[in-house]
């Protein structure tokens, strides 16, 4: 189903095993960011800040602080230009998982 335009385009390119292995984490594609300031206020986890980028066409860009991001999806919803994408969160590698959070066969993609 990848390549099919949908209402939530960013969710489709995630391969099924992506979620099974690693939880998703938000990341800003800085080239796409239009520095509209919508995502920092909607984040309840202080995971989004605006940073100066002198060479960026808008001189600024949103940046995700990976340590704070809980992958909740609100910034993803707020972004008007789909500049926020999902990337694998590898910070959980090696940490013991609760039984209910173990990868399961029947888990599907988003």
């Amino acid at each position, binding site marked *: 189903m990848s390549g*099919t335009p949908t209402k939530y385009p960013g969710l489709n390119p995630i391969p099924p095993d992506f979620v099974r292995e690693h939880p998703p984490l938000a990341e800003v594609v800085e080239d796409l960011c239009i520095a509209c*300031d919508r995502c920092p206020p909607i984040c*309840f986890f202080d995971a989004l800040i605006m940073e100066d980028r002198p060479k960026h066409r808008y001189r600024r860009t949103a940046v995700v602080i990976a340590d704070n991001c809980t992958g909740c999806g*609100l910034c993803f*919803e*707020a972004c008007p230009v789909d500049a926020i994408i*999902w990337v694998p969160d590898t910070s959980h590698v090696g940490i013991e998982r609760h039984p209910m959070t173990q990868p399961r066969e029947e888990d*599907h993609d988003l």
Partner: protein
Amino acid sequence: MGLETSFLHMRLQSPLLVASGPASHDVNQVRLAEEQKIGGIVLKTACSDAYAHMRFWPRPRYKLLDWDKQVGGRSKNFTLYSYEQGYSGTLQEYWDFISACKQHAHVPVIGSIFAGEAKDWEDLARHVEDSGADAVELDISSPHRPGSLDFETTFVAAIKAVVEAVKIPVLVKIAAGPDVQHQSIVAEACGASAVTLCNRIRGFDVDVETQRPILHGYFAGIGGPWSKYYVFRHLAGSAQVIKIPICATGGIMSGEDVIKCVLLGATAVQILSVIMVNGWESIARINNEVLEYMERKGIATLEEIRGNALKNMTHPDEIIRWSGEPKKGPRNVWNAH
């Protein structure tokens, strides 16, 4: 003239409370809410160990459907589709969280719990009290609860056990549905100090392109500005039959909505999704809108107008129906014109 409200022996500087959820899972959010002159804070719901998996949040867990995406806190339409579940830490971390909030907060802090067995409810409520919370809210209607727990057995026993066990006020949070009025009466009879109407209910949505349910493929809690209409309806239904105070919640977006809740008998009003979508400034904006109304109407306290709209409600039997002779229009004649 002022917004000061007396709710369950607590003096609130405003009738607005932050509802249990992502705007009350972190001690620093207490300051953000207080800066906007919030009346009190209901903390994120903690689950008993039997539901420990609810502490692990799915990612992502929110969708904002049909959102008008206005900037600067001016959004008026959206549906918040959420599968967030409970407080993300252990129970010990939750007790520490309550203590930390109490240490820094200048407004009342209300703990919120969810469990299965009555003894777990009781145990959690005792800890909430010992941690210093000003009240405890029983989230018997969590839209994220696993399986189906029966109100008449599980929750009635839980409310009774908790009321017996703690001295702080006990709020019971009831979800919209056909039984709200009955459940309010039962909660009052069981000794609850207040009821919170109404919790989010479960909804569902499908993506037509992929032909699959959105997010995780399972029912999620839904709420949004549209839900205020059934909140008003349930307020009106319950306020006339119970004497304990009512805390309204669900879809409250503006000062006008708050006034409507008060006119229908609510004492306090919980807000959350408006903060999520329009920012913390929404609290101060709603406070100001309520004050403007009070000034315009010459009202000193909200107590003066509480329940006023209820007095003018009609019984269905009293609704005036037109009883004249039938109109002469050619109602059964096809293509008469």
